[in-house]
């Protein structure tokens, strides 16, 4: 079990889903705060729902408010940075670039990528936490 958890964890780093910031989170986890990483990740996913919904709505309104989109994405990207969600962050940056040049199609397409990566990471992390818990 423990080996599976470790394997999954390493894969997440190797495949670029997570970066060094995730290690920082792990460093903050200790006996007094044994579930810190999982708590932060849970908080991220709970909090990002409203941001994603906000972007969805703003993308639907015409004419597109790129400034607003960029602002919301800035917040969302900040959170992805804080948990070390490397791939999600990359898609966020791409989205912002489309915002900056006012590319509607690009924004819409890229937002799908953001959501996909966001969901994919969630599944992987949930698996990992599950295994890690069972391993204890």
């Amino acid at each position, binding site marked *: 079990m423990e080996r599976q958890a470790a394997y999954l964890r390493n894969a997440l780093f190797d495949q670029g889903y997570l970066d060094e*910031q995730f290690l920082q989170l792990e460093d903050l986890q200790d006996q007094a705060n044994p579930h810190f990483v999982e708590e932060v990740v849970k908080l991220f996913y709970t*909090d990002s729902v409203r941001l994603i919904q906000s972007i969805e709505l703003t993308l639907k309104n015409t004419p597109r408010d790129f400034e607003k989109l960029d602002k919301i994405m800035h917040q969302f990207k*900040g959170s992805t940075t804080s948990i070390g969600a490397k791939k999600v962050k990359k898609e966020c940056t791409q989205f912002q670039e489309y915002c900056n040049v006012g590319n509607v199609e690009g924004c819409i397409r890229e937002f799908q990528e953001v959501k996909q990566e966001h969901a994919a990471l969630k599944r992987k992390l949930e698996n990992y936490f599950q295994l890690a818990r069972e391993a204890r």
Partner: protein
Amino acid sequence: MGMAATDDQFHVLAVDDSVIDRKLIERLLKTSSFQVTTVDSGSKALEFLGWHGNEINMFSEASISPNNHQEVEVNLVITDYCMPGMTGYDLLRKIKESALLRDIPVVIMSSENVPSRITRCLEEGAEEFFLKPMKLSDVNKLRPHMMRTKLKNDIIENGKPENEEKQENGEEKQENGEIITTGEADSEMQQFQTAQSLQQQTSQNNNNNNDNNKRKSMEEGLSPDRTRPRYSDLTVMSN
């Protein structure tokens, strides 16, 4: 969870509109043995600091014993730069413009590396500027700023006038002359050692101020309010 602080612990007020970043900074600070209060806006930070007077407000992030209407002692404010409404910079300015609050060291965090922004904040009196996300190594840089201010306050509270000491300082100036407080890491050790020796000698040395032209003149701004009640008088809850 209620916590009673001891006199040894510094109290940090962390300001960030992101719930995730608040959780992170709180953990970082607690891991470094600081007492922490987190708030989600600059205006709440000012209220917590007692900027609007004696009234204590109940926040979502912190609840304070309703029986105590005294101000809380805060040893450092760490704030995000980008926040809706009052930015971290606005908050910094308000703190530095306030006779009551200006002694409190302020540190800024930002997810963006904008040199002009950094300069502006430092010029306005921020001790340091950190790029997010913060690391433990960044948090380790906070303590000297808090110690320096605490030491100053302790000296002032002891009631020794500065004039008397100035003559005596002639000799001491040499060994203490290195107290340049610009927040640079390499002077931390010197500051700490000097702080220790100062406490032992119970002599005053306000030299640590004179060389710092970023800091407003302390001597003018003294007020009885400085002797705020210690944090141990209050029970503050933080998530």
